[in-house]
């Protein structure tokens, strides 16, 4: 078991992964969670299994910097098996902001749209996100958490950089569906990776990514 000083690269990568996972599990159009600080980190090397990180960290709401929550997590990167996503177990101290009301308003707004929602470049080049697009961004944030979790390794650190395109797809069932093309920023290689994802959401059922895939680097040129 090795203590890691919190700024240590492997601690912050593991914590970023945990944050992404938690974002996916708890995300909604009403809030998104991003890693603010790592308080404590330990690494355990388990023979034949992999590396397990024990973490204590703070998350903040992407819409409200001062709204924070303390978390602990265990992140296990599996040895050798590149296709297996890391295991993440976490606890959240206290409660996340309740966004039921905003979620329901958003749900009804989208359901009642005559024309399917379509948008590009969120945020735009200057960092602007219109109020109408904030829930769309929060949904992408939660969904990208899933993609990040599924594709992370000990030597990667992903962040959602931008939504290139989003298109709503009307469904006959109760779910809302959005097809996204997002740009992920990978911090070690510094690559910007386009990724496609189909996202389903319902106020009571949370965020699900039913389909996702990496796009070629110049797919958007």
């Amino acid at each position: 078991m090795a203590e890691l000083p919190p700024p240590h690269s492997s601690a912050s990568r593991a914590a970023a992964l945990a944050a992404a996972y938690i974002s996916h599990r708890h995300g909604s159009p009403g809030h998104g969670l991003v890693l603010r600080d790592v308080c404590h980190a330990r690494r355990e090397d388990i023979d034949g299994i992999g590396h397990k990180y024990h973490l204590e960290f703070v998350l903040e709401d992407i819409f409200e910097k001062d709204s924070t929550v303390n978390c602990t997590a265990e992140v296990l990167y599996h040895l050798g098996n590149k296709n297996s996503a890391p295991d993440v177990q976490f606890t959240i101290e206290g409660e996340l902001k309740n966004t039921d009301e905003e979620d329901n308003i958003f749900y009804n707004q989208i359901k009642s749209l005559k024309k399917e929602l379509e948008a590009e470049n969120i945020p735009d080049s200057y960092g602007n996100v219109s109020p109408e697009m904030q829930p769309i961004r929060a949904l992408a944030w939660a969904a990208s958490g899933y993609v990040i979790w599924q594709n992370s390794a000990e030597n990667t650190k992903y962040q959602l950089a931008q939504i290139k395109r989003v298109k709503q797809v009307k469904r006959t069932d109760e779910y809302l569906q959005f097809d996204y093309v997002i740009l992920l920023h990978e911090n070690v290689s510094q690559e910007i990776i386009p990724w496609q994802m189909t996202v389903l959401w319902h106020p009571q059922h949370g965020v699900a990514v039913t389909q996702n895939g990496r796009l070629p680097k110049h797919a958007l040129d």
Partner: protein
Amino acid sequence: MLFFLGMFFSLGILIPGKLSLKLQYDGDQVLYIVPETLQQVQHLQHLCSTLLLDLWKPLLPEDMKAGEDLHIRVPAPLVQEVKESLDQHMISYKILIHDVQELVDQSTPRETSSNRQIPESYNYTQYHTMEEIYTWMAHIQNNSELVTQHYLGKTIENRTMYYLQISQPSDKNKKIIWMDCGIHAREWISPAFCQWFVKEILQNYESDPKIRKFLQNLDLYILPVLNIDGYIYSWDTARLWRKNRSLHMNGTCYGTDLNRNFNSSWGTVGVSYNCNSEIFCGSAPESEPETRAVVQLIESKKSDILCYLTIHSYGQYILTPYGSTTKPPSNNEELMHVAQTAAAALMEKYGTSYEVGSTSLILYSNSGSSRDWAHMIGIPFSYTFELRDKGTYGFVLPADQIQPTCEETMLAVTTIIDYVDQKYFPGEAMILTSASLGLNLCLTAVLTLIVS
């Protein structure tokens, strides 16, 4: 139009170089005179030389001729005396300009306080195009006696690279603080910070004793945008572009990561040899003209450079050497201590937390970085700053965060500069410079004239 240009040219000649007094032309008048006789010409020449009047036309008193018109600027306190003298000698005149200052004010951006030397119309809380930054640099140079713009080199697309030198005029041999911004195109908050920094120094150097003090010993060299071609490309074409715009692989691939291109363990770790990668280190160390431009200048002045700062985003870090190895630099303890003090000062402003440590330990391994190179050639205090935020917006930091980011970062940077100043110039009290002494004398003289 040409007349006004001529007028400003004339005013320019008259401004004494060393004085930091901002000249005002309130109540000054420009008289139009056509001397009719040689006697009148001689009298006018006499007036000009004894009263030190500002002759606009012709250029020299000896070129005055009967029958040819003169334009003379008469300072306000002398207007009455000059007119009386002209009357006495039956020299008729017309008033061409009733108040020179009024005309100057109409033609230049308004300055509300005599301390301000930067036009208020430049918005430091907005992101600016390269064209706007070029204009800003030229304007800053023309409006401040502390700033000179210097040629650094050319980019691969043949654009000119300039840096700004902020230097308090004095006879002292100063040491240098170097700061560059915008080595990576998409990190827009970085050039925004360099511009902010320059503005803050120029706005406050007269009133802020700390700035006054370190400017006695230190010159500041600021490169607002290092990767100009990339920056323009990120505005016009691809917002998340990182590298420069050099062409490789038989014209099929663009861009070298300039921060992997320096000669510091070049090409060994944390790089790619493939141009398609964002961390492509180039075909050789210093293969890129932008890199060479910076290297040439810094090499030539390295014995005077005490501190090398390079500004990036995002992540909220102050990074110490090295990226290419985990072996700590010789002055690691001191580097860490100063960085931690700087991070603490930064945090005081808005609670923003920065992490401090070597790149190789807290980020990743990388070779060929400018910061590693600076330290390896002997510049003792070398730091990389990664500004806001931690990923919420990442590279596309909203403009409403420019001000708070710059304010807090300013505190960190001035902490480092202060430390360097105190370390290499210990125990110096603030001394009155000859410029400020001159200012005092002039103000006294003007006040005396006005009062009498």
